[in-house]
């Protein structure tokens, strides 16, 4: 009988833990902004353009990150991801007369390494996944924007006396394998260590294996907010990342459309509102909207 009792106790423990987890979830549920779909799509886009096709089909697949709190994050129990990237994506989707909250939008996870292949193969229609604009990427996919400019900073333990990347020469600094941040860390003289996700890095900083981790300041702010009192963001930004929207090279006409939607969002304040809502809580101040690149 002792065995059965132990089992019952264990089961009760699991039930309580599950209950607690459910409560925790309800607490920080961020639904994001409600963006209403436009209804003027008849004849809005020229015949034969990708936008007309998407609006006609009423379906779109958007590539976002799942593991970056504040930008693109999807917990195990969330139906749709949340974050600034997602909010900007909603504006684009809505402009195609598709309801961003409906199941006509598929939020596909695009990790750093498969953003170009997914765009090239048409698995996703647009990518908004903290996607830095680089010349090399522009050879294979279309990129426009930026809709956000951020810089790389350092995340350390609360009690650490590291003040910036200069203090980390020759030390191991964690970032995500296959990201630009990792290369920037190496260029600054630190030893880059690559993990699979930012949360794994944060875990390793917490347990003291690595002195610091580094990536875009906005992502770090999100992680610091998640582990309040244990982690802090330090130092000046030591790189400039221009975060843009990725689209397939087969549909260059999308560039003008994306820029148009972004421009409108900059002007009518919905961009600032989205920023406030998603990145504001972790202490990032809402900046001026960035200057958009011209479409080639």
């Amino acid at each position: 009988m002792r065995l059965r009792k132990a089992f019952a106790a264990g089961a009760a423990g699991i039930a309580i833990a599950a209950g607690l987890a459910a409560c925790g979830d309800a607490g920080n549920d961020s639904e994001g902004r409600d963006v209403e779909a436009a209804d003027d799509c008849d004849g809005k886009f020229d015949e034969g353009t990708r936008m007309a096709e998407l609006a006609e089909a009423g379906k779109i697949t958007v590539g976002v990150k799942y593991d970056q709190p504040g930008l693109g994050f999807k917990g195990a129990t969330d139906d749709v991801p949340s974050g600034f990237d997602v909010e900007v994506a909603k504006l684009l989707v809505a402009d195609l007369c598709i309801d961003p909250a409906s199941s006509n939008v598929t939020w596909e996870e695009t990790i750093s390494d498969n953003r170009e292949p997914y765009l090239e193969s048409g698995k996703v229609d647009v990518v908004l996944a903290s996607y830095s604009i680089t010349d090399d990427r522009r050879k294979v996919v279309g990129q426009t924007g930026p809709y956000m400019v951020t810089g790389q900073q350092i995340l350390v333990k609360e009690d650490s006396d590291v003040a910036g990347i200069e203090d980390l020469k020759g030390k191991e600094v964690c970032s995500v394998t296959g990201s630009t941040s990792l290369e920037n860390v190496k260029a600054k003289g630190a030893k880059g260590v690559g993990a699979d996700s930012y949360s794994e890095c944060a875990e390793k900083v917490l347990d003291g294996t690595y002195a610091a981790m580094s990536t875009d300041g906005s992502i770090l702010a999100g992680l610091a907010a998640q582990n309040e009192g244990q982690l802090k963001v330090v130092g000046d930004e030591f790189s400039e990342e221009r975060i843009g929207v990725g689209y397939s090279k087969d549909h260059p006409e999308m560039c003008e459309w994306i820029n148009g939607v972004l421009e409108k969002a900059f002007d009518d304040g919905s961009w600032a509102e989205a920023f406030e809502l998603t990145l504001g809580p972790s202490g990032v101040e809402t900046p001026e909207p960035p200057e958009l690149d011209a479409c080639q």
Partner: protein
Amino acid sequence: MSLEAILDNLDEFFKAFGYTLFLFLVTAVASLILGTILVAMRVGPIAVLRVLGSVYVTLVRNTPLVLIFIFFHFAAPIIGINFKWVQVHIGTFDFTSAFATAFVALSLYTACFVCEGLRSGVNAVPMGQAEAARAIGLPFLGVMREVILPQAVRASVPPVASALIAMLKNTSVAGVFFLAEATATMRGLTNDYSSQRIGIFLCFAVGYIVLVEIVSMISLALERRWRIA
């Protein structure tokens, strides 16, 4: 298809495979030793050790390698087991926590397969050999060392070589866990040079094929050399 990405980063390419190769070598030695100890436990006369041996093999062999990595990276530190103290620097290579953890996880895992490979060899040795060795008064360890293992090793070269080849490719799991070995470096390069993905991928695939081919050739040579005339 252009290979500039690789040619411009040759040092990184070779360093990546250097980590893969180092990890393979130290893990091979450790898992061969641990595997031999395990097989001695499993075929030995002491019941407790026999049970311990089979429980270990069953438990570890039936756990996915990634879970073993996750355990040593994220669970073990909570109960005070970590490898932060490992700080070996040779030339431009850093053997630190990530390498040590990969080494431990891979060795514990591969030892099971080595053990079972060797056990198939032990089973191939006719019973009479062990009985004869006992009859002339050799103790258990003597029987193992002088009579059984030399014959068993010969018979188990192919399965043990297979286990080691699988382990060589399993080192790529470490690439997801903080170690800049070949697979992780490949992912870094495909990100920086998105337009040359295919070339980068092929170069790294060839790297692995060459390494595995070398191991296969060593195994073949040993098989030939130890063949009974």
